[in-house]
């Protein structure tokens, strides 16, 4: 669909959303992939969340951080999908979809896999998306204190696993 062919309620909104999508889709999908360990699910979830954002664009577009809205909706959607998969009978050959994805290297990702998904979400929002603790709290609809505590716990685990990185950087 192009802005011209849409002819919808607001060509302007179409253009603005398209711009937001172009700017944000890959970045959020990468972050969600690291959160979930499932790239296919993450990409699908972000498109789902983007569709919902477009549906509510007159509201979502005015948020301080629409990317946070999309990340949160995509994360929730993914978790519901994972829960459904977990409940549903699975063929024997299927890898447990709730496992962290195909992470072998580098070390940070392996360490990330030791965190639960909520801790991972906080780490990714802070360290990859660059959101402040407050922005992360809004995006995840979680109190700032919870974000801080999850981040603290996550960092402690990461620090333990990644101590060699600190040593390397100091050498």
């Amino acid at each position, binding site marked *: *669909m192009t802005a011209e*062919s849409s002819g919808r309620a607001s060509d302007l909104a179409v253009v603005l959303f398209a711009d937001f999508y172009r700017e944000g889709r890959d970045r959020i999908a990468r972050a969600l992939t690291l959160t979930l360990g499932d790239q296919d699910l993450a990409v699908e979830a972000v498109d789902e969340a983007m569709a919902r954002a*477009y549906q*509510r664009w007159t509201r979502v577009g005015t*948020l301080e951080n629409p990317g946070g809205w999309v990340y949160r909706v995509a994360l929730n959607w993914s978790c*519901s999908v994972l829960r459904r998969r977990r409940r549903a009978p699975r063929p024997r050959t299927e890898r447990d979809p709730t496992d962290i994805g195909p992470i072998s290297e*580098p070390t940070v990702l392996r360490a990330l896999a030791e965190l639960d998904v909520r801790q991972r979400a906080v780490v990714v929002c802070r*360290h990859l998306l660059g959101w402040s603790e407050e922005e992360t709290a809004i995006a995840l609809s979680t109190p700032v204190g919870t974000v801080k505590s999850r981040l603290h716990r996550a960092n402690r685990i990461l620090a333990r696993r990644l101590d060699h990185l*600190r040593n390397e950087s100091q050498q």
Partner: protein
Amino acid sequence: MSNLDHQIEQQLYASASDLDLGPGDVGRVMARSRTRKRRQSVAALVAVVLVAGTIAGTAVARDNSRGFPVTANGNSGALGSPGATLHSGNVGVVWEKVDPHSALGFANSVTAGGSLYALSTAPGVTNPDDYPGRQIYQSSDGVNWSTARGPSDAYISDLSATGTQLYAVGTGTATVADGPFSPLVVSASADGGSSWHSVQLPIDLAAIHAGFLSGDGGGENVNVASNASGVLVVAEVGGSLDVTKFLPAGVTAPNGWVLTATGVDLLGPIDSPACPAGTTTSPNLGRVAPETTLAPLSPTTATVGPVSPTECFPANAGANAVVHASDPAGVKTVLASGSAIAPQDNHPVTASYTWAQLGLSGDLLKAAQGEPFVFFSPNGKNFQAVTLPNAPAQSQQVEMAADADNFVIAANSTPSMSGTGQGQELLWQSTDGTTWTPTAAAPGDETGLDAVGYVAGRLTTVSDTQNGPTVATLDGSQWSEASLDQVVGTVPAGDVVRGDNAAIGPFGIAVVADIAPNPTSQQTQAQIAASGAAAKAYGAVGPSVDTQRLLVSRDGTTWSSQSLNQLVGSDFSGVVPDLVVASNRFIVTAQLNGPTNLASPEIILVGSAG
């Protein structure tokens, strides 16, 4: 920032950058949104006898509504428009505002036939923290809802009810033979959801998945409609064909491809400017909101795949410029519209193959061409694929409805497989679900429908045209069209009326119309300029909606218009996610401003005869 933090960030950046996500498709996302929006809005149309069936589950809320009567005040005077005359008047509808605790949240697929059924997450909350997934709710009045049992072996995406029969479509449990995609199933219940019988739709998803790009090929946008004649299901398959799997040995497509009406064109490297002289792919949009100071990720490796049309915008905004926002960084401008350049216009075509040469046939070919899959069953158990005559490729935004005697399917199609060109709305009608007759769409419907259905036995559509929301009614082979901006009420100078949501059902037609500043007007631009650096990014002006009005009609001719802000109250967020016209009432779900930007509570307005 500690060294460890820095190392973590670097590692995360590197890992994220290494991901090969594949190309995004904003058009598909918009279409997905629009299709869902319309699906939520359109109700199946059948003569309704409320069912006093046994409902399994727990009562969510009863008798806790805080209703207040609001008489639908119409505007006086008859107003006409080319082709048809609409009147403003009292349509005899009394509105009741329902307590959020008994209203449905994040609902879609509310049926209008038989009992009312809806898919919803939870009462009153759009996006609860612990997203519980949707389940089926049942109501006899649209006010009090109780949970109903759904099929245990399927994830439901749409519902339809006829008399005592409830039908649900969705995805079932995948087996090894199904591959990664779950089969599409239709479940039927004759006892209000206590027991279900499910059947698989005869569609070869495994073959489609095998021929599509990784992760593509799943069923999506599965819709159902029903009447006494039977059950109609339409499924759209998402994704793109992986042409490389079908090319002759030794042939590659390093620069991607584009589908044509007869097959595939392989493309060479771009050999001319992406956009014609004087246009650009990068309009001066600016950012919608300050996102982050995150450094851009490294470009990912180009993914071989379908090449999308290029959106080209005038390089110099000139008279076409639309100032949409001011922020501390300065005034941003956007352009009202762009145009699409087909991939073949800026890439050489290095080779072409027909579908037969590629060996594509059956469901895989149908899915590759973007045709919807249509199935019908007279009893809800044995589904057969049916053909829509003259169905073009690349149909999307498929919508469907039924009344007691008719089925209708609507789809929007682009004339070229490359996705360029003006969309075309297509309609098919049937009385038996198996034999379909193409029906020309109303002239104003070329940009897609907001609602389709039958009013008093006549095919009726609501669309949002360049002239604002328009209702069209088919008399024989002749369409009568009328613009609803004539009955919306007073529209301030410089403002425009746009359709936001619409539904058609046995009780009539409902339309949500936005009255907002015309973003292209000089007055709006002057306001924006006056707002200066204090205005936040585009929230203060531009596409934000100033006023929303609820237009309803029982007969398609006489309309009332009321302010949604007044009906809902000061907490109204401006979002109306659901609009349903049932047998004897209008049901409007409105979002309220919530404590966060996510958990928006909702309320329901119920309009009934009074």
